[in-house]
């Protein structure tokens, strides 16, 4: 299996290492515009299967192209990869970009390839957990997703943009756009993260989850921040974010009718966002390379892959989901 990783930041570098740990992988090409960073990553990988991606690598060669660079050009790179006959895995969490990637559905079907959209920590693991929780219910009414933690400086910038853009939620059959950075709600994440103030933000989860649950009434997504109000973030200036990001967590609350009455199931996961995101993307890419995609076209990771095998593989790699047991506040 030959793979290309575009972007060698906090996630891309870990992703390349994860891919190389699979013996079925014969080559991993790293495409990074920063020459010094690319050289550092290749030196750290110290594996003869790792190489610098050729300029025209998208035209031929790779079985799967993983887009782990900051949001911006994922659509163009995905189109080029499809033209070259590769499956695509994108980690973008930018709403407009996710929407445009999902619009590649027909092109991917014609090319008989799969475009996995939002295959990271959130979206990605959050969608897998939502589908897994829904297995215990007969009818899903509401899904509420929250995430805290960044994978690195680029991820932090993206989150700041999301907190100042319009959030997109699903409510009673309609898309609802409301200002980001408002609507504070304290969400409780797996230990040791605990309670964090979460705000509405431009997150693509609802766009990826609604197609999976046609009868769902509400889908919301929030971002956690330690600042009391994200508007203060602009006043106090940019935070210094470690290259690998601090520990983070996701939380997915699914409400609906269960066999014994109305239930609320809360699943979550605590890990460094860069670790979890790279694990999800690597698992998704390897699954596609092995031909485990459920169908051709564009869609979320929980839509185009079998959820349980992916969660099992993630657990084997150390990214373990947890369930909250007790009274949900």
């Amino acid at each position: 299996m030959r793979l290309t990783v575009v972007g060698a930041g906090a996630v891309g570098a870990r992703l390349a290492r994860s891919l190389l740990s699979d013996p079925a992988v014969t080559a991993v090409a790293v495409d990074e515009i920063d020459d010094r960073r690319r050289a550092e990553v290749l030196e750290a990988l110290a594996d003869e299967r790792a190489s610098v991606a050729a300029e025209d690598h998208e035209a031929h060669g790779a079985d799967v192209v993983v887009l782990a660079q900051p949001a911006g050009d994922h659509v163009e790179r995905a189109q080029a990869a499809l033209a070259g006959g590769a499956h695509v895995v994108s980690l973008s969490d930018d709403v407009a970009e996710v929407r445009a990637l999902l619009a590649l559905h027909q092109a991917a079907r014609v090319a008989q390839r799969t475009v996995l959209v939002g295959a990271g920590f959130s979206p990605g693991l959050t969608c897998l957990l939502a589908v897994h929780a829904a297995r215990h219910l007969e009818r899903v009414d509401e899904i509420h997703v929250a995430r805290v933690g960044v994978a690195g400086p680029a991820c932090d910038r993206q989150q700041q943009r999301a907190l100042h853009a319009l959030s997109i939620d699903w409510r009673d059959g309609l898309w609802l756009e409301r200002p980001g950075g408002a609507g504070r709600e304290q969400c409780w994440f797996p230990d040791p993260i605990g309670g964090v103030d979460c705000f509405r933000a431009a997150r693509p989860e609802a766009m990826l989850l609604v197609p999976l649950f046609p009868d769902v009434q509400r889908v919301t997504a929030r971002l956690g921040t330690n600042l009391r109000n994200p508007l203060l973030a602009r006043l106090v200036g940019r935070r210094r974010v470690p290259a690998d990001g601090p520990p983070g967590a996701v939380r997915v609350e699914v409400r609906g009718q269960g066999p014994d009455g109305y239930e609320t199931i809360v699943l979550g996961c605590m890990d460094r966002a860069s670790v979890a995101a790279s694990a999800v993307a690597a698992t998704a890419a390897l699954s596609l390379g092995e031909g485990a995609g459920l169908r051709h076209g564009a869609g979320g990771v929980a839509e185009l892959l079998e959820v349980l095998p992916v969660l099992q593989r993630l657990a084997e790699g150390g990214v373990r989901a947890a369930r909250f047991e007790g009274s949900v506040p």
Partner: protein
Amino acid sequence: MKLLRRAVIAIGIAGFGAAVLRLRGVGGTPPADGGWRELSGPELS
């Protein structure tokens, strides 16, 4: 002038209310009981 003063006061009160709602939000009650347990075995099969 009186009308203008009333309008300014009304806008001020509305703004203050919106700011309080924005900052205060909802939630904040820690779980009364229970805790997180890792999924394993049959829960992942």
